[in-house]
């Protein structure tokens, strides 16, 4: 009997969690060590906005109970930053100078917030990013001092921060450089419907503008001057324009890096026994048919899980990522899946149903009878059927009209297709 395999996971996000679960499906014995630079075991990262307004609390934020890790024999090392990887020796070094040996390594370092240069913002204690539990706690600690806040970035993170702040009584202004919010995940119509709801809830949204300068007095923020010359009174600034893959650790170890860490179809990097998953990596995407950074949670978890299985000896390709987002603001449920703004010359057909009065919108993006993307606003029931049809590349010819209606279900498919779609997987 050979010695137990030592697995090391760098990063305490859902990719790391998925890897633990993937490894343990295959190998019940090997030593698993998860190191995270954060102070907490894997927690709900998108949950930080819910935490800020009290819908989640410290007991509900962890993704798994403490007993989960002890039952699976996982050593959790929090507040432990990996500073280098020695691919030859098979060790990682931590900030404390400790060497941790590995037989298989997963790099799941996630993304780091992009901080736009804004005059006068540096060194102020009321300037925050909004990607970690720590960020949310910092804001929470200072909430009594925040009456007005400016959020830079009208994407998912920025709007979730805006919603949470608005819910705790802060007057919020969102700045978005594009002509619409949610430009990455949703199309203009959906973005506008969401914007309408946010404005009705009391959040101000300014598009085609951004923060240029912070005016402060003795370290206290007074107002934010915008590129247009307008200014907005504020006592806090939240920077939420996006995240970029955290690739420095991998790059420094000689691992191939593009925009993200490059992996093969088994999610292994160019170095044997070293894998990567989640927001830090570029894994295969089924819509774009190429490797791509798609920093969304289900992909991160799925990649982590498959990487974990493969690290433990399963030899299976990753099924491929599919971009999808579910968000709800003030009762308006919105889901986008796959390609939602197709290129004009790509040969795609776009089908739309819009009922502005009732905030209902549906859009299908198809090509040669197959579904490539869907946007559902207002009626999102059974949205997963759309995701599944996209993923499996199934012909939906003849189903388009019912798919645009809110009633669509398996019963609209012909029998053979329905029976197949309802098989357990």
């Amino acid at each position, binding site marked *: 009997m050979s010695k137990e395999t030592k697995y090391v996971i760098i990063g305490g996000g859902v990719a790391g969690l998925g890897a633990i679960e993937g490894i343990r499906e295959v190998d019940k014995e090997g030593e698993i060590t998860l190191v995270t630079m954060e102070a907490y075991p894997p927690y709900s990262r998108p949950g930080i906005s819910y935490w800020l307004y009290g819908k989640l609390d410290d007991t509900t934020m962890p993704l798994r109970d403490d007993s989960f890790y002890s039952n699976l024999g996982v050593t959790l090392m929090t507040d432990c930053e990996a500073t280098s990887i020695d691919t030859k020796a098979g060790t990682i070094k931590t900030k404390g100078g400790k060497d941790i040996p590995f037989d298989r390594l997963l790099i799941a370092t996630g993304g780091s917030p992009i901080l736009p240069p804004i005059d006068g913002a540096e060194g102020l204690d009321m300037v925050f990013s909004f990607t970690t539990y720590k960020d949310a706690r910092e804001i929470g600690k200072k909430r009594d001092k925040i009456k007005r806040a400016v959020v830079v970035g009208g994407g998912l993170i920025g709007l979730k921060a805006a919603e949470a702040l608005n819910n705790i009584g802060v007057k919020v202004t969102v700045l978005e450089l594009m002509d619409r919010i949610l430009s990455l995940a949703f199309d203009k119509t959906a973005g506008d419907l969401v914007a309408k709801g946010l404005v009705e809830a009391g959040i101000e949204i300014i598009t085609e503008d951004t923060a240029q300068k912070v005016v402060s007095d003795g370290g206290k923020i007074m107002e934010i001057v915008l590129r247009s010359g307008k200014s907005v009174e504020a006592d806090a600034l939240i920077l939420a324009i996006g995240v970029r893959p955290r690739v420095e650790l991998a790059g420094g170890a000689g691992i191939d890096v593009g925009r993200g860490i490059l992996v093969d179809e088994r999610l292994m990097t160019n170095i044997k026994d070293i894998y990567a998953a989640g927001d830090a990596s570029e894994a295969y995407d089924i819509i774009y048919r190429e490797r791509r950074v798609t920093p969304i949670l289900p992909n991160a978890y799925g990649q982590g899980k498959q990487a974990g299985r493969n690290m433990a000896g399963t030899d299976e390709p990753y099924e491929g990522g599919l971009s999808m987002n579910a968000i709800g603001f003030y009762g308006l449920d919105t889901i986008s899946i796959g390609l939602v703004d197709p290129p004009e010359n790509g040969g795609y057909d776009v089908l739309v149903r819009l009922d502005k009065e009732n905030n209902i919108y549906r859009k299908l993006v198809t090509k040669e009878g197959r579904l490539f993307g869907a946007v559902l606003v207002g009626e999102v029931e059974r949205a*997963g059927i759309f995701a599944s049809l996209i993923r499996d590349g199934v012909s939906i010819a003849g189903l388009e009209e019912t798919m645009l209606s809110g009633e669509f279900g398996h019963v609209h498919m012909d029998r053979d297709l329905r029976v197949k779609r309802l098989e357990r997987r």
Partner: protein
Amino acid sequence: MRYVVANEDVCIGCRLCEIACVVEHSKTKDIVKAYKFEEKRELPRSHVEEVGPVSLSITCRHCDDPRCVAACITGAMRKGEDGRVTVDIEKCVGCWSCVMACPYGSVGMDKEDRKSVKCDLCGDREIPACVEACPNRALIVVEEEVG
């Protein structure tokens, strides 16, 4: 693993499965009280799809590698050691990521409380309430060896 499936050839679309599910998940487990007097009427965990002559009840397959669990942002959706996929409503924030992920469309939405609702195979019940209630035996429990 066990799960419930419908034979569409014999489903008559009576929706008694939905009603039995509501009653089973109610506080009193009494049909009259569950529908008329409880503070909040539970939602059915299965739903009947029906168009013209075709009808069938659709409910969770308790997948081996559940997409709802992969997509859940808070860890509310879990696959237990017994194979059941369940949702912890204390942790659910109603983001509907599970709804977006489930290929069967079998995660329900409690829009009032913003919580996901789904089949839990009726806890300790030997035969799930929907299966027991089906007058035409369209619903059956499938037992599969876990691979």
